[in-house]
């Protein structure tokens, strides 16, 4: 490597190590400039609209910044700037549905969401009456989801324990694989399965809340298994070995050492799983059916939940059912978001302390 010995070029000899580049403020200035130009043109033509303005501004920005970069910095940098713009646009695109879903839900939901709505059922209320609420649906949601949780958590947690603590060989591999496959079962198929099972056991037309819970647990179990498995794996092996060394049986080690260490993560996983299934509509439509009355008994006759309520109201048509549907949707979203936030909070506060 003889180049090491050659003296570096003297400073100021006309050789710059830095290639020419656009100043740091160039993108911001270009964006502002294109927004202004497009706004001016649109107003002049008389076709100003938020959508057109945004789309055309971004287009003009992309063209300008790429052209400027190509002339100053060269083709490679220009391509880089173009891709950067594209990536930002993608993210902006994703924000549109999120913001508009939340916005329309809140905007339309507050029209009818009041204590009366939360405390009244639809019994003896005609679709177009300016009355009625979602009390029966809220109760149905809690009962159906509650039973689904009661079924899914023991099965899911025990399966996770089996996979992490005991599982070896073919059986464990098969279970892991099929849990993954089960995650992908369409919710309507889970509902149909339970409907078919109920048809076999009780004959036609036997809708009940518990059937809905069973259908939901088919969807919930794999989620619980997955998340609990991840959490159990985080428990350091030293803890298990310390317990074994003291002569504690394996099952007591699991119950007294492994589970308490990972309980926060497991709880978080369960809550996220609940949030996932609480919004399911299709499987309940074919298993629990729908009703206008309050029903607290999951093992007898039809039971309605909030998502099914939303769907029922929409399919009846008209302004008032429409408002009821949105109010119920807002209630549902509030419940789901609260569960999600609670889950994050639980996992943050009781995060498993790994190592020292």
């Amino acid at each position, binding site marked *: 490597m003889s180049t090491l010995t050659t003296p570096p070029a003297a400073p100021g000899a006309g050789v710059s190590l830095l290639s020419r580049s656009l100043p740091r403020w160039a993108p911001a200035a270009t964006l502002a400039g294109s927004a202004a130009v497009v706004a001016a043109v649109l107003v002049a033509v008389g076709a100003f609209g938020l959508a057109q303005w945004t789309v055309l501004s971004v287009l003009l920005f992309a063209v300008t910044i790429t052209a400027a970069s190509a002339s100053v910095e060269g083709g490679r940098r220009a391509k880089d700037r173009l891709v950067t713009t594209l990536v930002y646009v993608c*993210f902006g695109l*994703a924000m549109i549905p999120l913001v508009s879903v939340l916005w329309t839900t809140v905007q339309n939901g507050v029209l009818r969401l009041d204590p009366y709505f939360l405390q009244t059922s639809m019994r003896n209320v005609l679709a177009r009456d300016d009355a009625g609420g979602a009390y029966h649906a809220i109760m149905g949601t809690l009962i159906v989801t509650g039973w689904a949780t009661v079924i899914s958590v023991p099965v899911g947690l025990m399966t996770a324990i089996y996979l992490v603590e*005991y599982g070896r060989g073919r059986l464990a591999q098969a279970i892991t694989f099929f849990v993954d496959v089960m995650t992908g079962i369409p919710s309507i198929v889970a509902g149909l399965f339970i*409907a078919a099972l109920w048809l076999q056991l009780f004959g036609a037309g036997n809708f009940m809340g518990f059937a809905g819970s069973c259908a939901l647990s088919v969807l919930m179990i794999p989620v619980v298994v997955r998340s609990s498995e991840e959490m159990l794996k985080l428990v350091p092996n030293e803890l298990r070995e310390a317990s074994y060394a003291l002569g504690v049986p394996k099952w007591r080690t699991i119950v007294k050492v492994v589970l308490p260490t990972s309980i926060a993560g497991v709880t978080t996983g369960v809550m996220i799983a609940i949030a996932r299934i609480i919004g399911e509509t299709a499987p309940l439509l074919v298993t629990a059916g729908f009703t206008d009355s309050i029903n607290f008994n999951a093992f007898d006759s039809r039971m309605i939940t909030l998502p099914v309520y939303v769907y029922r109201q929409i399919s009846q048509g008209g302004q008032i059912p429409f408002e009821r549907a949105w109010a119920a949707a807002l209630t549902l979203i509030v419940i789901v978001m609260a569960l999600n936030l609670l889950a994050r909070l639980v996992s943050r506060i009781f995060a498993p302390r790994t190592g020292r």
Partner: protein
Amino acid sequence: MTTTQPPQTEQPAKPPPGRRTRRRPGDLVFENSARLSGVLILVILAAVAVFLLVQALPALSENQGNFLTDTEWAPSGDAPSFGVAALVFGTLLAAVLALVIATPVAVGIALFISHYAPRRLASLLGYVVDLLAAIPSVVYGLWGITWLMPQIGPFFEGLNRYLGFIPIFAGPVASPPRTILTASIVLAVMILPIVTAVAREVFLKTPTMHEEAALALGATRWEMIRMAVLPFGRSGVISAAMLGLGRALGETMAVAMVLSPGLLIDFFLLQAGHHQTIAALIALQFPEASTLQVSALIAAGLVLFAITLVVNMAARYIVSRRKEFTE
């Protein structure tokens, strides 16, 4: 995400032979109940297939038409005749369109979160995208009817006016636009979070050494992504897309609420009353169906189950193969 190799826990050393090998009853009970739970999952999955098949048989045996190739759906009366061809076509069309719309955007978002956004912001943005996944599907259906359809109508008109010479955009444009394209856009929004989440995980796992090596050679950020991140993440993105496809195939309520159904096999994306998906058909007809209709719907559900099973297993297979190569 998925692990097929056995977990890394150490089994306590077996007692040497000759000594007492009787196991504690508590251990036996606990281990067997854990194993039972695992086996129960396999049983459930098998039961799904078996019960769907058993309940589908009555309709299949009375079917006058060909179940796989017929397009009409009339499973009632004296001569019930029904086939899933049009339904399968509609299901695949909606899901594939959704995938075509969602995948590029999802890859863009994943790149934004993993390589463009400021580090502090990135995890927050990831959470925001996950929020999209937490919104119930029936709310998406409502949103599609209330917000999206009025916004998308003029856009479809424009599409038809300027690109109408391409057959898929042929008119007359439906108004309100209860078309397969609208349904696919709603589906695309719904599968965006899962595709993004998986792609993001893969992109974040790119070896830092590869990235730094590319940057050290003078690559721009895009060149670094093209040379280091994308080749590493390709199979991950493919499996993410497959997972999204599986999701879109089985999505029910949003399609049932947005799409105006029909049983044709064609590619007119802007016309209403041409397509229907299996899941939406089941949700719409099941509550008021007669015995034979229920049986026919269950047969359709069995087909849907088979399709999603194949797609998901393919996705898992790709994921597990990637694991062998890279880890």
